């Protein structure tokens, strides 16, 4: 099934660890490396937002309503320069974006992690135990995946209401099924391999077989799906917040910043919406590009 057997290459002069090999393969695409660097920068900005922001946009003492809607490069009454302008409340857009990025990434990462954990457990158990467990679980997964993510999120948020915790729950509910399906799919393939049989023959416990033997082997596709899903989650959160049913105004993410700016856009004050929009775009596109390259590198069928 793979070409690995008949085209066994001559041994490389230095023995690479799989990780070194992975890094080398990944670095083959300059676009992907650039995307990874961009994402690292985005991540740094999000983590260090309180340290590097010119002002704390949620500290009312630092904000003056008189500074509202200044264009990029405008000066505040106190002499501060707003490089990307200010919003309707007179907040520095640059600072607001840094904080918004922080919220967006936090929500994306948290929901992704929990969804991954849940999806992984469900998918692994479905594949490992098979039979009726598998049938029931996969029916639910299929049913959920037949509805678009935004609709599922809409249903949940309509019932739960606004809030960081609520939107994380909604995003977990939206995503877990993708992980479950992916894990089950690759775990089913791996389960038939001899090493699992060998582990079973050794009398290892279910838990040990699943987590120490099966899990590491289903990680590659999971990582790929995970990258794409986090980009989706960030986009979906931004969309829901833009619609006004995601995050509360007290904790604005990029989506909410864009929504706030949207009201001013028709009067030509483009910067309030555009800059957070660009930040969102850079984040999503860089994650997707990294994900694309990961898929190529980790896909066993494409391995040289």
């Amino acid at each position, binding site marked *: 099934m793979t070409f690995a057997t008949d085209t066994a290459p001559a041994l490389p002069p230095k023995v690479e660890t799989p990780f070194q090999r992975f890094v080398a393969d990944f670095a083959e695409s300059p676009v992907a490396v650039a995307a990874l660097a961009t994402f690292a920068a985005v991540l740094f900005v999000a983590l260090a937002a309180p340290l590097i922001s010119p002002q704390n946009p949620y500290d009312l003492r630092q904000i003056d309503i008189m500074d509202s809607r200044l264009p990029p490069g405008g000066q505040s009454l106190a002499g501060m320069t707003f490089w990307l302008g200010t919003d309707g409340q007179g907040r520095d857009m640059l600072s607001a974006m840094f904080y918004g990025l922080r919220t967006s990434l936090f929500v994306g990462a948290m929901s992704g992690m929990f969804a991954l954990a849940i999806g992984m457990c469900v998918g692994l158990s479905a594949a490992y135990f098979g039979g009726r467990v598998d049938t029931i679980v996969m029916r639910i997964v299929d049913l959920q995946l037949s509805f678009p993510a935004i609709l599922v999120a809409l249903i949940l948020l309509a019932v739960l209401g606004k809030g960081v915790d609520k939107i994380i729950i909604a995003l977990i509910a939206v995503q877990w099924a993708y992980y479950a399906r992916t894990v089950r799919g690759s775990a089913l393939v791996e389960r038939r391999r001899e090493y699992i049989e060998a582990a079973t023959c050794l009398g290892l416990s279910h838990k040990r077989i699943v987590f120490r033997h099966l899990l590491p082997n289903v990680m590659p596709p999971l990582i790929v799906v995970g990258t794409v899903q986090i980009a989706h989650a960030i*986009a979906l959160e931004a969309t829901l917040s833009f619609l006004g049913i995601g995050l509360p105004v007290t904790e604005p993410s990029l989506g909410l910043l864009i929504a706030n700016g949207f009201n001013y856009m028709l009067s030509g004050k483009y910067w309030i919406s555009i800059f957070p929009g660009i930040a969102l775009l850079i984040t999503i596109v860089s994650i997707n590009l990294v994900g694309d390259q990961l898929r190529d590198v980790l896909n066993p069928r494409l391995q040289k």
Partner: protein
Amino acid sequence: MTVFITRRLLQSCLVIFVMSLIVFFGVNVIGNPIDILINPEADQAEIERAIKALGLDRPIHEQYLVFIQRAFEGDLGRSFVFGEPALKLIMQRMPATLELALCAMLISIVLGIPLGMWAGLKPESAAGKSIMGFSILGFSLPSFWVGIMLIMIFAVMLGVLPSTGRGQTVGLFGLQVSFLTWDGLAHLLLPAVNLALFKLSLVIRLARAGTREVVLQDYVKFARAKGLSPSRIVLVHVMKNIMIPVVTILGLELGSVIAFSVVTETIFAWPGMGKLIIDSINLLDRPVIVAYLLMTVFMFITINLVVDILYSILDPRVRLQDIKG
């Protein structure tokens, strides 16, 4: 064929039943039904009267039966905001959403299949690569962001297209439609393009992948060996083969287009059911929310059913299997 359709119908009924259970218990268990179904501004006496009227004092399985019975009669409650039956409100808004969604689907097919086939026939050409680049962007960009950009470019900066509303509508078979007037078309264009973008990218990818696979098939080479013109090979032999998966998947996506119209309708103030649900969530107009969710689920299942049947008509191989089975 009849066996096939009957079996599918039964399956769909089962799914609708399960979904009605989920929505009903979602509303009644996760949320407080009194909050959801009764006007929050009502006083204590009113609330008690309403609880009795709604049967909320009865056991939950009985409530479910009543709920189902009413749903069959087309009664899904009254809107607090509009004071009208929720179902009627949704039905009033539905034509606008359907018009938008169908228009978006049309754009994605009419543009997506030729573009995707082009990219599939000439994957290494500059055009082929640009088409793919466009489709990758279309996948990555959040739909609301693209909508904002469209408004900024075409409505604010160039000022050539309107950014909100439906424009002038005319009646067609008792429905109000926009696409028959110039003003309506101008209003329809940006939202439809916005909504189409994601599906357009999807169609491009599917058509490209399909084309690349089909041109390698022996029957394409055989068609060339028959001395057919390249246009006939591409337009008949290749296109008919890729249409089947594309139409199937796109048909399944109609539901998701309707769901995503929530975003587009909000941005462009398009008076459809998507805008209604967002407004209702923000105004806590709960009967409308419940009615919308049930309607959408129902619509989804109907679409899936229709697509399955269409698919079996389009692909002669599936038809045969059914005759045999």
